């Protein structure tokens, strides 16, 4: 340990001792002064502090908001259609709960101050009142019904079937990274079996090469999406549970080994536009793993690029099917007519 560390420990210990001695002394003083007087004094001080806490607390909440608001996504438009709905839901909930929060906290601390004990105070014997109980059963119930109604309306829209024209992409998590698979020209993701996974043989996703639909499947290192075009993610995991967390799109979905899940949305804002909106040159859409998956969990990042159709097509044209890597000898021959090939295999 260094000297400063010893120093800190000594200081802390000293503060402890001082506080302790003061507290003990105040106990003796209160005995001298008379228990009753000390009791009343404590009441007055602490009742006043309750009021101070209320006022400073509300002010601090305001201050905290102004400091942190811009660091959150509250002021950044949602990057997906579902995200917009989720933001709506959030504001509705904030208004209702915020209102209740202020009322109840103000009453609580105000009562604590207002009804502090005094020599003359007479309590109001008030054991129950069924009308009041009914009131605060029914009113919260109505407020909550409103929240449930909005919530479920949005929930069903978000979790409903993806539109037919949605682009399908498979996202697979493993310790500690993400893999993406595009279906290629045939728009079909080829068959897969985890027992075929073999990174050494260029088959990290266990694609079954006997299925021709696999031959044109692409395996790029980033997830590219087209703005305003719905996308449906098919989410898998190879080892433990992960989670595709998309803060800017306001969505997330677990990746569970053995049980593929899906999630769909329509990106609304391109990466380039988002850079302007946030004023951050380095802005990128990140996939954050949101389910504890081991020691590298905090580094399990993916990058999403949202771009226009032209940019997307250009990028897509540069990608090579994984099949070419896995079976270079066969692939080079088969490359020209993948579609014909497919009929052939099906016929077999």
């Amino acid at each position, binding site marked *: *340990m260094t000297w400063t560390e010893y120093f800190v420990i000594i200081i802390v210990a000293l503060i*402890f001792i001082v*506080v302790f001695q003061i*507290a*003990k002394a*105040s*106990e003796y003083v209160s005995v001298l002064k008379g228990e009753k007087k000390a009791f009343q004094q*404590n*009441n007055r001080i*602490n009742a006043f*502090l309750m009021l101070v*806490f209320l006022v400073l607390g509300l002010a601090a909440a305001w201050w*905290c908001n102004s400091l942190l608001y811009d*660091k959150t996504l509250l002021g950044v438009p949602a990057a997906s259609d579902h*995200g917009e709905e*989720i933001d709506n*839901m959030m504001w509705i*909930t904030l208004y209702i709960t915020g209102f*209740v*929060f202020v009322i*109840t906290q103000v*009453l*609580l*601390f105000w*009562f*604590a101050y207002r*009804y502090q*004990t*005094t020599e003359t*105070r007479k*309590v109001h*014997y008030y*054991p*129950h009142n069924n009308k*009041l*109980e009914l009131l605060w059963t029914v009113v*919260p119930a109505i407020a909550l019904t409103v929240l*449930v109604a909005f919530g*479920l309306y949005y*929930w069903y829209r978000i*979790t*409903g079937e993806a539109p037919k024209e949605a682009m399908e992409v498979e996202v697979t998590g*493993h*310790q500690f990274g993400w893999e993406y698979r595009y279906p290629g020209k045939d728009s079909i993701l080829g068959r897969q079996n*985890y027992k075929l996974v073999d990174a050494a043989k260029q088959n990290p996703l266990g694609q079954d090469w006997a299925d021709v639909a696999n031959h044109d499947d692409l395996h790029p290192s980033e997830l590219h999406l087209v703005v305003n075009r719905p996308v449906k993610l098919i989410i898998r995991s190879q*080892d*433990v*549970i992960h989670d595709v*967390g998309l803060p800017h799109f306001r969505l*997330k*979905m677990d990746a*569970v*080994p*053995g*049980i593929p*899940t899906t999630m769909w949305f329509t990106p609304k804002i391109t990466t380039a536009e988002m850079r302007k909106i946030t004023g951050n040159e380095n802005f990128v859409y*990140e996939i*954050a793993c949101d*389910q504890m998956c081991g020691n590298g969990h*905090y580094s399990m990042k993916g990058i999403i690029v949202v771009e226009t159709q032209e940019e997307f097509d250009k990028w897509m044209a540069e990608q090579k099917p994984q099949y070419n890597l896995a079976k270079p000898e066969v692939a080079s021959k088969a490359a020209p007519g993948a579609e014909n090939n497919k009929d052939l295999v099906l016929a077999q």
Partner: protein
Amino acid sequence: MSNEAVIQHGAGTHEVHGDHHEGHHHHETFITKYVFSQDHKMIAKQFLITGIIWALIGGAMSVLFRIQLGYPEATLPWLEDIFGHWAKDGRITPEFYYALGTMHGTILVFFVLTAGLTGTFANLLIPFQVGARDMASPFMNMLSYWFFVLSSVIMLSSLFVQTGPASGGWTVYPPLSALGDATQGSKIGMDLWLISMAMFVVSSLLGGVNYISTILNLRTKGMTMTRMPLTVWAILFTALLGLLSFPVLLSGFILLLFDRHLGTSFYLSDIVLAGNILPNEGGSAILYQHLFWFLGHPEVYIIILPTMGLVSEVMSVNARKPVFGYMAMIASMFAIALLAFLVWAHHMFVTGMNPFLGSVFVLLTLLIAVPSAIKVFNWLTTLWRGNLHLTPAMMFCIGFVSMFISGGLTGIWLGNSTLDLHLHDTYFVIGHFHIVMGVSAFMGMFAGIYHWFPKMYGRYMNNTLGYIHFWITMVCAYVIFWPMHYEGFAGMPRRYYDYSNWESFKQFVELNKVISFAAILSFLVQILFVFNFFYSIFKGRKVTTKNPWKSNTLEWTTPINPGHGNWPGEIPEVYRWAYDYGKDGVDHIDQITPIGENESKEGH
């Protein structure tokens, strides 16, 4: 000793001074009195002190991982001096960070806020407040404590194994927790975790059965169910919840042990781990989550219900006014206990569950906010037009209500699956449950400790330290957990070791420093509390009157230092509910005072 106290303060009490108490002075040795004690009061103290020790360990762990989160760049050689390769070059390693987080959660949720809390107050208050000499089965009660110790020893030992303790989060989801190759913490540390928790479940069940049968069977004459103080009601519901849900958790753990060691595939399917293709097929990792949360959700109410009882009681005593809506309080606790079994899947909205199923759980989850709201309004009305004695215990009651409101309201956010899509597994959730469960429950527990300390040890705790303890805890709790909601609004995930490589989450550097600083400060203040606690056991101001808070409940009719059997002579008979404060202008009328002829019919 007990006899003398009665004579001293006997005036105005209603005990029957028989000679029966002779029978209770059996021969006691140090071992039977302090170690293998079967006296509910001693067992309560054992639970409390064991809980305090665990709280210090669990709290210290959070200080360590907050150092990492607040000061990720700092190298602190003293860390390496103490923890060796777990803090290589003075920096906490990811393995260590995750082990700390997992242990912190497990310890605080189960060992402190379940065993430490219920163990203490159920044992202390049930026999006292229903008017019984002891628990229905003092022996089982003792076993319950010693199973807890056994569980504690096993959990503690897991901290010292080579590969470290469990590190997959306190919920230990498989496959991560099932596969030793997935993370170091899932090797032997995980087995110890599971065995320890199995012992813990045994301890809880032994305790729970006892609490329930004592409450149902050993009430003194006149103590009808609806005359019981709310503390006892709360503990009754807590025990029922535990009894019905802990076995499900245990079954989940046993299946996990099978998957780990017997090659079964309950939770495992289609796994390729570090290039190895595992043979398991057909299992469901989600099954575990259902089993876990079927306890996990009731568990959070197992933690908060007893403190609701404590707060209701302490608040009423110190407001010098009956608790408002006694029957509504019981009904809402019943509703909470019932609904607690029907909402577990709100922890699983994003596991890919059927959206319709999800919507059912949304409805039921938000429904549980109704009884919670009723309780809050009833507490507020209890304070209204009272004559508040702001003792440290009362301060913590008010703090409890404040925290419970704040955290309950954010629950309404999370219970709405639409919002949970965005907020699940972010710091918003951390903020939510630490405020509503962590801090609230601690506040309720502190209220209980300050209030019943005189009954436990015949001395008072130091008041000034109590107030300091309250205010710093209150301020720090909000400073720590309030801003975390904003981190959640940024989508910042929980359980990350370092955020500096994330474009989306790296903007909270200063905030994380502030939070860590406040966390360390509040930990120091808790140490101050522990000092106060132990110092006061031996040196505190002595209690000189049997009923220092002028309370109505039965425990204050026992001698200042009650012996085994609690009441010398016969157990007093009860004539009224526990909340006649301020009735007909009389400050308080204890439960053993018969209804007067001219007494108004009001009340209960």
